[in-house]
């Protein structure tokens, strides 16, 4: 039995995030004591250093904060690359899909979706929020 002071304090954040994603769940961390949302997943909340992070499902809603189009050589299609600000506060890099890459605009309301990525893993993307 490993003495308590040497035990691993929490599941590894990066792999936990991708395991959730692989199972079709978008989960991020939130501090139990301060309510602060954290992305990307970490061992502690950046800045405050709070370590009581729990995995919580965010609303999945967000707003495009910045956007660009990665121009590829034809026949490969151009790809949108955006930074989305989640309604909970954190920002992340992603693709906004289901619309032409150059039609994504700052301020656009978007909703999270989990799709098969270009590599082996499933990835988190966003699509225009139909409800709005």
């Amino acid at each position, binding site marked *: 039995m490993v003495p308590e002071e040497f035990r691993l304090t929490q599941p590894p954040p*990066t792999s936990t995030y991708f395991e959730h994603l692989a199972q079709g769940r978008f989960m991020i961390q939130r501090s139990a004591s301060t309510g602060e949302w954290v992305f990307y997943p970490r061992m502690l909340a950046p800045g405050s250093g709070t370590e009581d992070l729990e995995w919580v499902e965010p609303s999945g809603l967000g707003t495009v904060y910045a956007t660009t189009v990665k121009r590829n050589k034809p026949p490969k299609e151009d790809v949108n690359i955006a930074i989305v600000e989640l309604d909970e506060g954190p920002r992340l890099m992603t693709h906004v899909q289901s619309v032409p890459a150059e039609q994504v605009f700052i301020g656009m309301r978007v909703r999270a979706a989990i799709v098969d*990525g270009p590599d082996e893993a499933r990835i988190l993307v966003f699509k225009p929020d139909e409800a709005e």
Partner: protein
Amino acid sequence: MTRGSQLRGKTAFVGAATFGIGEAPGYTSIEIAAEAARLAIADAGLKLSDIDGLFICLPNDFLSGLTIAEYLGIRPRMTNNSRTGGSAFLTHAEWAMLALDAGLIDYALICYGANQRTGAGKLVSAQAPSPFELPYHPNNPVASYALAASRHMYEYGTSSEQLASVAVAARQWANLNPEAFRHGPLTVDDVLATRLVADPLHVADCCLVTDGGAAVVMTRADRARDLRQTPIALLGAASATWHTEISQLADLTVSAAQESGRRAFAQAGFAPSDIDVVNLYDAFTINTIMFLEDLGFCKKGEGGPFVAGGAIAPGGALPVNTNGGGLSYCHPGMYGLFTLVESIRQLRGEAGDRQVQGARLALAHGNGGTLSSQATCILGLPETV
């Protein structure tokens, strides 16, 4: 007392050189760095054996400090190959200032060399991809800077034409610099006619990929007086880091240059209005606009109109990147050291057709990662100390 002000003017740049700018076919990166080092040491009137502090950072050799010590055949008291991206060399100047002032070393060499054009054939980056960015395959670094540009356009109405005018000004300076890799006429329309890489940035909004090396030598002010060249005082040096991946920068229109600049100016006891020439790391045209704002040369959001009005071009109110910058002079992967070399050349009055008449104070600014690491040095003639 202002933090660091006791270091103001205690050290000086006494040697500076470049080598292999543009294309240096067949040379390895370490050969280019070593030759720049030899030339800078000779420029200072020193011997190789005088160097006891060694600072370097290469994109593809994480232990380049060991490589260059062996290559030069010296046994430095201090070897530092710390890396903060392309700003590293300005942070090296900051560390060298400390070590020289503390008496740990007497002569510091900061050097760089890379063969990215004729060797690698593309930009070589040392930045580790984030597992949270990697699945989206951003064409970094340009995609990250493009995201910042998109936000600057959204918040301040900055236009593609204004971005392009940064590249035009850089080319106009390069046309006055025979060492620059790119020469020839360039208009805003020419820039906008080049291929988009990551909207809103076109090919001509992006820095070159070239070969090239640079080196500077520093010592304490007392020793500097007896050397060959007019010593160029280091009046302020400060650096700041706020993030590494672009999504983690709190406000995509504000970089840590705001903090590094403020601290460097406080240390130097000068204001942006005192500066005669600015050399900053223009990896992309948005950099010049953001850094001019962050460093206090114009208000936040006014960088676009400022550069489009010709202020930074030859004949303008504020000479910026007088060598032609990373956009038209050279960009061998990490450009920071070239901002110091050009500042030294301007203050010494060695800049030929591009000389800024009466230049007494220069600001050199380096950027690393994706707007991540910012480092500012303020340099001056002996009379400014």
